């Protein structure tokens, strides 16, 4: 990529202790988020996309989690090597996070205005009065009517969509360089989803911050992303710009994903699901994790885990047999 990167994740390895034993959540994840870029991290449940976000924000509880290796470089600094306090001071200020379920992601016992203003207080960016003023301004900016009045209300008095707007206000408060949006629309109704997508787009356009959009929704990726990173079983299997990804996905999993997606603009007709069950993180197959359902799988796939290969086009794929010419 020609654009300089805000965030570079390099061979990140994270595991968790569970009743079934230690489970590797990330098996060496590497990708970068460019400046002013919207990067979609696409994956299904258990693929490790949320763990990646949590690692960046320092939200991996240890124990039961542990970061076993790799680097997360943000602005050239390896966050994992930072002192906890220094890491913390970056969060919310230079990189911020938007959660999936905004209603439960807001503290139920504090007014929403207070919670937005707290961002300023934590980072010592404003005195109390101006922090509150900023909070109201931010609420107006994200489209909450009667913001001054509603700043004193509590999360339970807001709808899910409004809560997500408040989360966004919080995330953009200190004009961060990177916003990580972890399934920002999943818990919302379709019409409200559309509102939030519009808001995110506006926010991106106005602030110029990079957005790392974590989602399982291909529609959302198509709608917003510049580039897409596909994760499967704790690994990146494909890294591609969004147009070429939808036009000609490289990894068999990505192909399967696109084929299994029902589309509103197409009528009845059989879907083509990826066969079999999603990978069990406790019992991953040897070699390529996507080997069992993969139509192209050979003995090599069981013996050798495919590395993420950079292709000439700038795309990258982790499959022994994938290359653009073959398509």
């Amino acid at each position, binding site marked *: 990529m020609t654009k300089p990167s805000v965030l570079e994740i390099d061979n990140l390895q994270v595991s968790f202790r569970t009743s079934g034993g230690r489970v590797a959540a990330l098996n060496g994840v590497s990708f970068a988020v460019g400046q002013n870029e919207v990067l979609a991290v696409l994956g299904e449940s258990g693929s490790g996309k949320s763990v990646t976000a949590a690692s960046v924000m*320092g*939200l*991996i*509880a*240890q124990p039961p989690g542990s970061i076993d290796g790799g680097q997360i470089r943000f602005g050239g600094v390896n966050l994992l090597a930072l*002192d*906890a*306090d220094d*890491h*913390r001071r970056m969060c919310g200020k230079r990189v911020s996070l938007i959660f999936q379920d905004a209603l439960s992601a807001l503290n139920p016992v504090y007014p929403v205005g207070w919670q937005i203003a707290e961002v300023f207080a934590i980072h010592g960016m404003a005195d109390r009065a101006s922090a509150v003023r900023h909070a109201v301004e931010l609420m107006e900016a994200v489209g909450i009517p009667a913001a001054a009045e509603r700043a004193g209300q509590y999360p339970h008095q807001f709808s899910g969509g409004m809560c997500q707007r408040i989360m966004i206000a919080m995330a953009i408060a200190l004009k961060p360089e990177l916003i990580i949006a972890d399934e920002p629309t999943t818990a919302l109704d379709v019409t409200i989803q559309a509102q939030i997508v519009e808001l995110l787009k506006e926010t991106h356009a106005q602030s110029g911050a990079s957005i790392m959009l974590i989602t399982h929704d291909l529609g959302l990726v198509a709608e917003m992303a510049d580039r897409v990173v596909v994760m499967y079983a704790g690994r990146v299997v494909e890294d591609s710009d969004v147009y070429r990804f939808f036009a000609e996905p490289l990894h068999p999993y990505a192909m399967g994903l696109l084929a299994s997606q029902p589309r509103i603009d197409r009528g009845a007709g059989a879907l083509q699901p990826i066969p079999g069950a999603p990978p069990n993180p406790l019992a991953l197959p040897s070699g390529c994790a996507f080997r069992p359902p993969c139509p192209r799988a050979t003995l090599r796939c069981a013996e050798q885990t495919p590395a993420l290969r950079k292709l000439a086009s700038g795309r990258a794929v982790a499959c022994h047999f994938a290359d653009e010419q073959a398509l």
Partner: protein
Amino acid sequence: MAPRFQPFGYARIAAFAVVSCLLSCPNLAQAQNVLRVVLQEEPASLDPCDTNHSANSRLLRNNVTETLVNVGAVEAVIEPNLAISWEQTSPTTWRFKLRSGVRFHDGTPFTAAAVAAALQRAQVEALACAIRGSKLGNNPYTTRIVDDLTIDIIGRDPDPIVPFRMAVVDIGAPGATPADRKTQEPVGTGPYKFERWNRGRDVVFTLNDAYWGPKAAIPRVEFAWRGESTVRAAMVTRNEAHLAFGIAPQDATGPLDKTYLNAEVTFIRMDAEIPPLNDIRVRQAANLAIDRDQLIGSVFHKSVTKATQIVLPNVNGASPDLTPWRYDPAAARALLAAARADGVPVNTEIVLYGRLGLYPNSTESLEAIQAMLNAVGFRVRVEMMETSAWLRRLLRPFGSDRPVSMLQSQHDNAQGDAVFSIGPRFRSNGNQAMINDPLVDSLIDLGTRSTGTLRRNAFRLAFEYMEKDIVPYIPLFNMVGTVRVAANVNYTPDVQANNEIKLKTITLR
């Protein structure tokens, strides 16, 4: 979650204030001008007419309020107090000459009118005075004021022992003692003035400078209450108190502990109306089965003496000639065997009712006695109960379908005349009597009507006849009390110490 967080690093946030400076120990008894007395229980009332409750009379009697006469502590004879002399002027009338120059704490003079008022007040139905019940008998008394310092006390029925009765009537100042309700701030003629009652904590007396007799030595007296004997004893040791009453035998081991005969006699009543206890051999066997020597110094204080009857031998009318039961388990077994041979259901289970806390180690003593009785062939089961339930078993009416029982009891005759003890327990209509013997009844009636030797001998005959030929009780011990006295206090308890703490006799060294 950050991995480097140290929980203990934040403990300082919640650092507790050091409070140890507040914890300096009180050392009250070091003060030279205060006597601190710790007792078992707080009085419910400080009214002079409630001095039948020992919790009350220990504070008031002859300290704040005084009586016309006192009963001697050594010999049970009447001694002058607020009255200087008395005589029986008719079978129903007694004339008392009062001491002159005595003033109540409120400044009013002590006169015949005050005596009349106190006696009248004590008999007012609505006040439910505690002394009215037993000590004034069922005989309404009226008064006639002869002059300021002479008063006639007139009974409805002839009463040969009016002076004994007057020894329990404390006289409060008529002006300061409301006639229609109990007072909480007693005003009397005694050597100490009531100062305050801080409920739940203490009662404070101060010296009465205008006392008619020799003044007491200590300017201020404070009373407090603790339920535990151990705690009371420790309070003296720890200089929190000077005098601690009611020290249990096991705590009464130190050089500071003074033991006194306390006029209490403990015994076990047998239900002689129900088999097998209706058979005298069984009752005798029960007496023979008790190893009293074993109990002395273990469960009971080492200074207790074996009782021969239900009152102390020095009480007017008691028998000095009776001897304690011997311990003879073989004889007891033989008696039971004989009774069994005659068809007496000796194996019937006998309930031994006990009252919790009747005296120190009350429960243990019954457990020991149960073991001794069962050892000779009785089948006794102890059942301990609190006072109310125990009273239902003690007092008439008993109920016809009751189980055969023994009942732990204790009696205190501090007034010195056997009539206070004998009627309720031995006469067939007595409220605690389980025997019905015409001879006993007539002896008691004769004694009650008479004075002097006749009275004494009638009662004495009754006691002796009962102990030998009826055996309604298992007499146990003439009890002692123990008071722990601080080293710097001169105090010798006497037989009346359960009802009277004679503060004016106490000095500090």
